[in-house]
């Protein structure tokens, strides 16, 4: 399937989907509310058949822009097609619907984004910190993160 048809397919579900310039592979920006429907369509539709969720990336745009992004890297093995879906969320109380119901690989990848950015994935079966200790304060990959002086009485050099 070519890119134009793919964009059309996403727009049928999402309403509008802006194509991002200067991005490889094809990147579409969609609303957080329509994410699950779009992904379900892309997963099930025999024309698209995105059977693999390769990666989930979180990006913090900083306090000036006051937004964060969640980027889903999808790949279709039979059609050899890659797609990045981007969802923009606010920095305060960011929430996105989980994709674990469609792809099982979303489980740990979403936990990592939750750990590093504090983005809550609604209806996730097991949303705990994954790389940082369970009692860690703050989300390290946010741009305004301040390094801790001590951790449990141990000085951090």
């Amino acid at each position: 399937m070519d890119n134009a048809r793919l964009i059309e397919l996403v727009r049928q579900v999402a309403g509008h989907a802006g194509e991002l310039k200067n991005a490889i592979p094809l990147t579409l920006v969609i609303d957080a509310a329509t994410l699950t429907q779009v992904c379900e369509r892309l997963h099930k539709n025999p024309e698209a058949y995105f059977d693999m969720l390769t990666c989930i990336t979180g990006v913090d745009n900083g306090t000036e822009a006051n937004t964060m992004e969640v980027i889903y890297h999808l790949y279709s093995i039979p059609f050899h097609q890659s797609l990045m879906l981007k969802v923009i969320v606010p920095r305060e109380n960011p929430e996105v619907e989980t994709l674990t119901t469609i792809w099982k690989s979303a489980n740990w990848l979403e936990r990592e984004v939750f750990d590093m950015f504090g983005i809550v994935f609604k209806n996730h079966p097991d949303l705990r910190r994954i790389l940082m200790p369970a009692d860690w304060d703050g989300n390290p990959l946010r741009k305004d993160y301040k390094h801790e002086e001590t951790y449990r009485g141990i000085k951090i050099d």
Partner: protein
Amino acid sequence: MKDQQYIYKESNLVDSEPNKFDASKLKSEEMIINLGPQHPSTHGVLRLEVLSDGEIIKEVVPHIGYLHRCFEKHAESLPYNQIIPFVDRMDYLAAMNSEHAYAMGVERMLGITDQIPKRVEYIRVLVAELNRIASHLIAVGTFGLDLGAFTPFFWIMRDREHILRLLEWASGARMLYNYIWVGGLFYDLPVGFEQRCREFITYFKPKAIELEQLLVDNKIFIDRTAKVGVLPLNLAINCGATGPMLRGSGLRFDLRKADGYSIYPELDFDIPIGEGKMGAVGDCWDRTWVRVREIHESLNMMQQCLDKLEGDYKRTREFDPQAIVPKKIRPQAQEIYVRAENPKGELGFYFRADGKSDIPFRCKVRACSFVNLSILPELCKGVLIADLIAILGSIDIVLGEVDR
């Protein structure tokens, strides 16, 4: 005297990595067994919380993060070329492959992919395939060690030593090379390297067959691994498995063929897949067998690279591997996701450049071991505890990459 750094208070001794299951709420036949983080069969610092009913496992919860070294945070404050040593330290058993993927990503951002000299590309693939053999040797050897086969581990360490010496000769380091640079190489191959590499191939080909006979075709090994930890293909794809995990489940999918990056389209090689020879397709034996076959394929690829390096693209006095290494790496504002086939699976880099600075705005790693390890709870429902060790060994994780 310096100030006292550690303050011992009772509140400081609280469990910072609590169990998922509450021991007081278990049923009478259930128990929680803790494996790791210091345990030889967990291949590093991995802690497994096992909820078991006698010998039968009900649930496995991996706890990771003991080796978290903030790669992504570091990458946000370093210029592109200075990130390469950090990339080495993720998958420290296959540093060349990781460097190759990283360099390709930055080159694609700069738009200099077409300008890389052919000799540089061939050297990159040569050393990457050499490193792939070393990584697969460790994977197969330590897997045998987990199952109680001690001898193959010594044999693979002996043979791997030759690879490490070759790579040390080329780059100066045994494991963490910093050899492949953005736009070129640290240095050309040393004089005589091609010859020694050919000697290694001649030496190693029978040894690889020997290893296969000693370990993979061994009756005890087959009994421990066949029909154990069967990963069906649809589950493998849904869980995001890549590399030998996915190929062991029977899908002929290799990014070297599918994406055809670098000079891999010019090389002739097969993609071995699991066929269920000893039991079911996608069991632990199949995954190991795929790795052993890939060693042979890598040897073939190295031979083809050496032919080219001594033929069409042979060493000349004028050749400068750093000729198009950029002095200042400042890509235009863009977002890119690049991926490459590492020994353990698909290694992906996501970069975002803002176009104003030499450091990436965001650099995210898609670690193959991380995603492959996330399948472990799926595979381990209702198996014996001894099989858990076999399944974990067959996944072939490197904790440096899981935790980054």
